[in-house]
């Protein structure tokens, strides 16, 4: 059995976002790129599942759609424990385009378990996993916050409004995962970093398809007005303002 984890790289979550080219493109100057946090959690759980599988899971592969500059991010995934990597050599233009590329990766690699992050911290498409499952017609769950392999089946928990459901799913299966699936991503060990040098990273050409959406312009949120501060002994005054003036409570 093989697991594919789909990863992308995004600006470090502490990055202050700026735009350039008349607000038509992200200003990438000074941006530090990281593995999309949800994807990193998916990878963490995939590695745990492999380790607990007693050999049933032969390998965890990571796949990304992106240009060569995404390779440091891929190497990091290899350093924390992924066995090999596939990079589809094309810029990730929109969710459809990426999903079509990944569907090809899944089909040609025969992956029975696919994991993707729920959202991506850049353009917040929150779409690739759902589209990929549809293109593959795999059994799928979204908002997956726990996942284990039990024999040939998946036991997964997913968040629903006001609670969680535990479900049992048959393979082939695609999980769109969220926080809780793993607590903290792994820090690569020296040994892992050393081994990442020699792990296979396969570069494949994209399949032909177009984009269905396009971000034409960006804007930053309007800054809020100044904060009206009250001293610690003016709680009553604040409540009064919230009640009578702002009519919020």
């Amino acid at each position, binding site marked *: 059995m093989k697991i594919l984890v789909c990863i992308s790289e995004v600006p470090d979550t502490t990055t202050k976002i700026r735009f350039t080219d008349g607000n038509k493109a992200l200003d990438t100057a000074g941006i530090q790129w990281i593995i999309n946090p949800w994807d990193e959690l998916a990878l963490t759980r995939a590695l745990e599942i492999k380790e607990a599988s007693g050999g049933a899971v032969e390998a965890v592969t990571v796949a990304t759609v992106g240009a060569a500059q995404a390779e440091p991010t891929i190497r990091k995934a290899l*350093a924390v424990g992924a066995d090999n990597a596939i990079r589809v050599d094309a810029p990730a233009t929109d969710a459809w385009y990426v999903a079509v590329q990944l569907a090809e990766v899944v089909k040609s690699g025969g992956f029975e378990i696919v994991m993707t992050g729920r959202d991506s911290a850049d353009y917040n498409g929150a779409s690739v996993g759902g589209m990929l499952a549809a293109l593959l017609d795999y059994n799928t769950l979204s908002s997956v916050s726990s996942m284990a392999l039990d024999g040939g089946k998946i036991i997964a928990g997913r968040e629903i409004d006001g609670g969680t459901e535990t479900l049992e799913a048959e393979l082939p299966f695609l999980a769109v995962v969220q926080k809780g699936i793993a607590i903290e991503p792994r*820090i690569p060990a*020296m*040994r892992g970093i*050393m081994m990442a040098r020699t792990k296979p990273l396969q570069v494949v050409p994209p399949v032909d398809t177009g984009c269905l959406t396009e971000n034409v312009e960006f804007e930053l949120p309007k800054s809020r007005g100044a904060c009206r501060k009250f001293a610690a002994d003016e709680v009553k005054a604040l409540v009064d303002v919230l009640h009578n003036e702002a009519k919020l409570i």
Partner: protein
Amino acid sequence: MNFEFTEEQKMIQQAAKDFAERELLPDIIERDANSRFPAEQVKKLAELGFLGMMTSPEYDGGGMDTISYVLAMEEISKIDSSTAVMMSVCNSLVNWGLETFGTEEQKQKYLKPLARGEKIGAFLLSEPEAGSDATKQRTTAVDMGDYYLLNGTKNWITNANSASTYLVIAHTNPEKGHKGINAFIVEKSWPGITLGPHEDKMGMRSSDTHSVMFTDVKVPKENRIGEDGFGFTFAMKTLDGGRIGIASQALGIASGALERAIKYSKERKAFGTEICNHQAIAFKLADMAVKVENARNLCLKAAWMKDEHLNYGIMSAYAKQYAADIAMEVTTEAVQIHGGYGYVKEYHVERLMREAKLTQIYEGTSEVQKIVISRSLLK
């Protein structure tokens, strides 16, 4: 000339940063207050391979270069110098000394578990009456035919309690001066070894520092490192590399203080604006940043020379003296920028200032570094 780090070096730097922020930062104030050794954190650090990161993979190490080591030391030291110093002693003194000068048997037996981080090492040179002047060793190892009999006291020993493998410097033949000095691998569990109390230090309070007493400790002949009389050279060569570790530690203390000062100055307001907008503060930050960058460049140059197998001993003295001295200056200014908040523990900079002081003292004081540097100029 190329100032670009490799992908791998950046990955190690990030790993060290993540580790420091995630594992070392949370209890740092409490550990400092109670002089509590970070046992759990050190175990995790060892599992990640940081304690043997420069040892070759042949002996179960990480096989990383010295530049990576500088980057990792800086990141760890930004947050926790007590952990950084133990990492420095393991990597640049004990493991490097064994790998470079040990016999194959010694490496198999002692280096491998150290490089894997399963065991911790300590380097025992300083004595109550032999600090900077390492030739005045009072600890003796008398050749008894089958073994050496070790007697004496060592002071200020980092990792004294947590280590299981000691490298001990002792006189075997005091008449021969520094040529009568030898280095030995000593297991802490052997009979005749006792530890003094944990030193109650000003800074790096959770590093495990003790004096160590040897009373008729039998050391097998095969545990001597190198030819008879090699001990002084061994100590000096090893300390050349050790200086890069401590220089990087001082660098991390300084750059950690600078980062905190920048952050604070952008948040704290006075006279209607963030204090970073006051030139008095902005210029302080500029001065601090230039010093930190200079120190970093010296550390990296010494590391690069070591990796290129050039003679790096003098450059490591430059790096250690400069980084330690500016760490003191930069942390003092960081406290000043924080004002009253800088003087309380919650804001971390007062701890960094206390830690900076030690970097000017141990593994060769700033004054000793200047002796080394000036002698090289006047040769």
